[in-house]
């Protein structure tokens, strides 16, 4: 009925990309089919499909916002196509995480590539890494061409492509080749996003690998405690969420067509604040518990005794929370203050349990179980299956908004001590609603803009799309 039907050239490229996927699947099921050439034919067709689609969509068009037909197309307005894509993506994630044996054929296809890089055979995670990186690169190129008029959009996309290919993908593979025992370490993945950084086997890996291992471990701790707050103070959480992070990278590139699907209701905002902070508390407790139990096994072999460790963590934690409540009381709504106090008290209570019971049990459950439950529910189900599988239904930043503990920490920093904000341009707002509609974090930007107030929200990832789509030049990201 509408004229936003895809043109025939766009269709050809769409089919080409889909046939690339089909080749991968076929080759995966029938290992004899095409062997590894299947890999290169499959990936090649996918790449040509995405790039071809991009050029047939945008080339020849003047620079500017390209949102025509977003709410008329099935894929981008929760139509049938969106549900089909959502189900397929979800199925892929479930298989990848829980039934990798069904992907055996597919994984073997990737052996030559993996052997070329790290010298090892491919694992399911290698396959995932390749597809993930490819998605960010290809859809990143699409994004850059779509937003060719905006340098801010182009630069941050170059940045996420760079961090994904070099830091998340290549460096860990090469490190594995140079030093087989070092834990797989994506340098840009910071605790608590990287919740397993302080797991026993990881710590073993770091500590038994001489100075390089130690340096990496120290870098990991400094990233969380020093580097992150400084960068967030200067630039806001966007330095990570929209310029560096891999989850954000996928959301901004492959997820870009779905940003308008985020829930803008007040209810969603409330849910978001509870969920993200409880998950942060969960990862905090389980990490402390896991390290504590690691130290308990051999209380005298490390500089840091288990009790000293617990005391310093509790002190540091209380200091930070106390400072926030004292210095920034006026910046926090009443309900935010009381929930902060409630969550912090529970955390301190649990730390107290650790201390006096001399065990790492949280209410009789050993902390490694809490940690593995976290890995299962949050690390796999939430960030992967729901976070990405549901892009076409819930929007592209569901994980970042409701689940990511890193976003929670950065958000607290952004709200309480950061130079970042979105300024509004006097009375120019016409309340059109484009900014709110395309905010992937579900922020009602218009509500601030029409009152001529700056936007200072913990959840804002600084993607800058609100500013790009505003037809009256009202919004400016500043830091």
């Amino acid at each position, binding site marked *: 009925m509408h004229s936003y039907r895809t043109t025939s050239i766009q269709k050809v490229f769409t089919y080409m990309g889909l046939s690339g996927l089909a080749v991968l699947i076929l080759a995966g099921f029938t290992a004899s089919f095409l062997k590894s050439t299947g890999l290169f034919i499959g990936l090649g067709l996918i790449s040509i499909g995405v790039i071809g689609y991009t050029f047939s969509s945008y080339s020849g068009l*003047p620079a500017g916002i390209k949102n*025509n037909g977003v709410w008329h197309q099935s894929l981008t307005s929760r139509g049938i196509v969106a549900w089909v894509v959502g189900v397929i993506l979800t199925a892929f994630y479930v298989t990848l995480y829980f039934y990798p044996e069904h992907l055996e054929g597919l994984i073997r296809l990737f052996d030559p590539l993996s052997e070329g890089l790290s010298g090892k055979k491919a694992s399911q995670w290698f396959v995932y890494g390749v597809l993930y990186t490819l998605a960010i690169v290809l859809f990143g190129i699409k994004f850059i061409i779509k937003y060719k008029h905006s340098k801010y959009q182009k630069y941050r996309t170059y940045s996420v492509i760079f961090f994904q290919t070099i830091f998340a993908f290549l460096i860990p593979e090469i490190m594995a080749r140079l030093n087989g025992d070092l834990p797989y370490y994506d340098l840009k993945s910071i605790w608590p996003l990287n919740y397993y950084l302080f797991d026993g086997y990881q710590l073993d890996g770091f500590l038994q690998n001489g100075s390089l291992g130690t340096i990496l471990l120290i870098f990991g701790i400094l990233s969380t405690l020093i580097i992150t707050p400084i960068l967030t103070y200067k630039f806001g959480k966007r330095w990570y969420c929209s310029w560096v992070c891999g989850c954000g990278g996928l959301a901004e590139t492959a997820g870009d067509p779905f940003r308008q699907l985020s829930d803008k209701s007040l209810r969603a905002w409330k849910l978001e604040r509870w969920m993200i902070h409880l998950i942060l508390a969960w990862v905090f407790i389980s990490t402390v518990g896991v390290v504590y139990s690691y130290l308990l096994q051999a209380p005298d072999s490390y500089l840091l005794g288990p009790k000293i460790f617990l005391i310093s963590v509790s002190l540091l934690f209380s200091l930070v929370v106390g400072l926030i409540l004292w210095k920034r009381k006026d910046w926090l709504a009443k309900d935010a203050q009381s929930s902060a106090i409630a969550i912090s008290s529970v955390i301190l209570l649990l730390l107290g349990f650790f201390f006096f019971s001399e065990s790492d049990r949280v209410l009789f459950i050993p902390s490694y179980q809490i940690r593995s439950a976290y890995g299962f529910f949050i690390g796999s189900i939430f960030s992967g299956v729901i976070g990405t599988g549901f892009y076409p239904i819930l929007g592209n930043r569901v994980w970042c908004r409701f689940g990511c503990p890193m976003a929670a920490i950065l958000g607290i920093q952004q709200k309480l001590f950061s130079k970042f904000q979105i300024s509004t341009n006097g009375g120019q707002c*016409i*309340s059109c609603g*484009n900014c709110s509609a395309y905010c992937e974090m579900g922020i009602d930007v218009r509500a601030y803009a029409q009152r001529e107030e700056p936007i200072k929200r913990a959840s804002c990832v600084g993607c800058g799309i609100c500013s790009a789509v505003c037809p009256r030049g009202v919004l*400016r990201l500043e830091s």
Partner: protein
Amino acid sequence: MNEKIVIIGNGIAGSTLALQLAKEGTGSVTLISDESSYFFSRTALMYVYMGHLTKEQLEPLSRESWDQSPIQRVKARVLSINPENKELSFRNNEGEVKQLSYDRLVIATGSKPAFYDWNGQEAEGILGLYHLSDLEKLEKWAPNASACPEAVVIGGGLIGIELCEMLLSRQIKTTLIIRENFFWSSHLPESDAQLVEKHIQSHHLNLIKEDELLEIRADDTGRVASIQTKKGETISCNLVGLTTGVRPNIEFLKTSRLELDKGILVDEYLKTSDPSIYAIGDCAQLRNPLSNRSAIEPVWYTSKLMGETLAQTFSGQPTPYNPGIWYNSAKFFDLEYQTYGRVHPKALQPENEQHFHWETDEKGMTFAYDKTSGAFLGVNTFGIRLNHRIVSSWIETAITIQEVIRRLEEAHFDPEFSNRYYKQINHAFVQNH
């Protein structure tokens, strides 16, 4: 005393007033309007047809908040008012005619498209662009390029150009006919108009200048088939958009003895000739327009400001309407336009107003200043965003054009990493002066 305040029209003017009064607990407020049950942004109608926004997203305030507020909302059309009895009559959704009394009445009925009497304008496929119902008509008559291969839009104001952009977004071949010899010449100096023309033509809009609609011709089914222009050209088309301006929507007041001109005449407190009746928004006409501003200004922020001003008066702080320095903004396809102060087109340019125009590919600025004193009067900017507060304060304090050019970067409002043109502008200015 709980005064009964009745507001007609739930546009930005009426809704702003109602919400503000509800917040302060002033009076008991009834908001009566015929177009929609919930306030929506008329300014964004185009984005619904273009598929950027859903209809619900036009509503700045959630339906829940409206339902919870103490404001009584009535969906009905006001037929007439009777100031002698402080009463109005309206027809509700069920078609019943009823009366409603008030202590204070506020008229905020906005504008409507100004149609002139063209031959054949009753054919099917002819519309203005103002109401939600116009969107429905568009979906019916111009759902896509196969149902509607060609369209003609008459009149090149801001709404006309939006309609063109809408139609082109569905690949409908669109012709825009304007009477003047360059685009929006009632507002833009020629150099600016040329910049805009170049841009809109690059979007494949067929622009016909210095011609006018003579008559509209329909086919056997009564659907528009072509139009004829005064210069004798025949253009075949399946849709005609008439966007030759808007005028205050006040027909229902003709019998009321309120003093009317083009709009409802009001004083600086927005009061009409009847001491219990006020008018705000597009339908109000100031008896004594402020310096450098018009008596009727059918724009979003003035309507909003009138609502806010009147809310203060009603809450016990009589406040005169004072919009300050004129500003506005628009977007011609992908070209953003902002204006601050006054930059007159040639026909209206006062003797003493001098212009400095600078332009580079798809970006441009025109500065207006006083020939003798050099005082800065205003600026039009295309493709470059400027800071409203800063530029306004420069106009208010009448700093010189030299100083404005020198300090222009202070008003920078483009996104980070954007190209900065301030040195170029400075250079061009120095060479010219």
